[in-house]
């Protein structure tokens, strides 16, 4: 599906970023490890011992590199990565994949014995692994994890799930992201992969939260706007009459995504918000940012 996975340009970019973030000794050590041809044992040891060589500080990436990465890596964002995570992902990207069965087994074994930092790196590497369709089950399994950092590595700024998870697994990912209070605006493909089944599930989820008198993240309605129907519309009406600005804005945004006539009418009853949507002052990403800033106050 995506020809730029495992592209040479992406590897060259990653290599440049690794190189500028490690000492020459570590760079040589890494290259030595990927050039070993005796297979998985050396590779395992290298993968496990990366933090001992590199430390764990945050990496530096230039703006140009970031935007080139987003382009080559279908949205891949690494600015918040630590150096050990980057180097592990790089090792995986460089691993010889000529023998498909062996390649699969080597990486699968790393998953089976991974500690938390290794899990984060492994899931972060999904977009740069060869035979991308081969990892969709592993990715879906990762969504079942309860380890927060592993979930974030899959859900946030990772282009793999949107490209390769089937609808059922994708819907689990989105629902679990809301459930575990992850920054859902960082899910790549959140809007594009919205679907009627997910909309129904999220509406049910909102009802459960309301019944329990627990707050509902307004971004839930981001995945439902296109599928507003007679079932979901009452939820949006409820939201539109909320005392919270964010919820009314979310209601208006959901309506603006919808062709359902009552939703259009409802939007017309919120002229102020409607005009900021038309002018581009308000969209889902801006709302997400506003919520985040409010939370941080």
């Amino acid at each position, binding site marked *: 599906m995506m020809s730029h996975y495992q592209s040479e340009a992406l590897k060259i970019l990653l290599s440049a970023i690794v190189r500028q973030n490690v000492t020459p000794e570590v760079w040589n050590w890494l290259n030595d490890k990927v050039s070993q041809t005796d297979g998985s044992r050396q590779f395992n040891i290298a993968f*496990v011992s990366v*933090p001992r060589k590199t430390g764990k500080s945050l990496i530096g990436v230039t703006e140009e590199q970031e935007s080139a990465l987003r382009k080559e890596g279908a949205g891949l964002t690494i600015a918040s990565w630590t150096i050990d995570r980057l180097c592990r992902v790089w090792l995986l990207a460089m691993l010889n994949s000529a023998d498909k069965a062996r390649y699969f087994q080597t990486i699968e074994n790393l998953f089976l*014995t*991974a*500690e*938390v930092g290794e899990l984060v790196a492994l899931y972060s590497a999904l977009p740069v692994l060869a035979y991308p369709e081969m990892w969709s089950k592993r990715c879906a399994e990762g969504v079942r994890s309860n380890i*927060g*950092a592993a979930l974030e590595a899959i859900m946030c700024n990772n282009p793999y799930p949107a490209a390769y998870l089937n609808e059922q697994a994708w819907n689990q990912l989105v629902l679990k992201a809301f459930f575990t209070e992850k920054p859902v605006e960082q899910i790549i493909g959140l809007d594009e992969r919205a679907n009627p089944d997910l909309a129904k599930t999220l509406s049910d989820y909102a009802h459960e939260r309301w019944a329990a008198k627990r707050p509902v*993240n307004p971004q839930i309605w981001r995945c439902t706007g296109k599928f507003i129907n007679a079932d979901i519309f009452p939820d949006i009406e409820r939201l539109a009459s909320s005392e919270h600005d964010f919820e009314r804005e979310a209601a208006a945004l959901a309506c603006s995504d919808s062709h359902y006539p009552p939703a259009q009418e409802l939007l017309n009853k919120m002229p102020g918000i409607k005009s900021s949507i038309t002018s581009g002052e308000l969209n889902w990403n801006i709302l997400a940012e506003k919520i985040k800033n*409010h939370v941080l106050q």
Partner: protein
Amino acid sequence: MCCSNNITEKGLQPGTPDKSYLDRIKGMQFFDPHIHMSSRTTDDYEAMADAGIVAVIEPAFWLGQPRTGIDTFRDYYSSLIGWERFRSSQFGIKHYCTIGLNSREANNEALAEQVMEILPLFVYKEGVVGVGEIGFDDQTPAEEKYYRLQLGLAKEAGLPVQIHTPHRDKKRGTTRSMDIALEHGLDPAMVIVDHNNEETMKEVLDRGFWAAFTIYPFTKMGNERMAGIVKQYGTERIMINSAADWGISDPLAVPKTAALMKDMGISDADIRMVTYQNAITAFAQSGQIDESDFTTVKNIDQSLKFSGNTILRGGQQLRTDKSSIIIR
């Protein structure tokens, strides 16, 4: 691990919790270098964090009944470096572990062979600060065989060794454990001999090993005795742990002992050595302990608000009011 003790009517009565000791150790930081958190609840994690415990070491051990296959060993080791590490971080406590085949299960030789094959996959992992807990239980030939093999592994990996000394025939078992470690060329400064008492400690210290003391009701050390030892022998190469597990044990044994030592006139500096610093010095020889990580794991902002409700970042767990009968 629990054993039988004499039951009296008084011994069966519930106690009333007195938490006033927490005031006396306020601001102190503790490191419990031996505790089996997989057997403990989240309430324990909360109480430990409240009492000032900032980091723990969870040695691999016996689960109370024997495992029957290699996969359960693998999953157990994985849980020590994965799930339990995460669970601990939710309460702001840095979690390390030691990995090894415990002495009881070394007696199942067919399985022990398979365990030895997978141990190298785990001992090099980040946050693995030693090979442990290994040593003798019944002191059988099979126990000796796998003890020796694991000493070799520790030496190869450059890791400290955490030695479990036996409950029965303890003194001879302790001497024998040290003899064998020296025979394998291990530096005693890399070996932590655990579960000491007044009878074993002198030889352990005289031979240059670290002496760990487990404060564990009924079967191991009591903390009044412990405070007496520190008063008499000082703090050099001495450390205190709880070894809390699935038996009647106390995950707050280290902070409680600190409070008691304070009451008995032991200086803060000495308390710090035996409840924090010495354990770090010993296990940091693995290259896997960075004290700044203790603060990183604590840097979990609980003040974030969303729609008037606190939300969590970095997986920190919300606190519940345990005294309320209302559960929301």
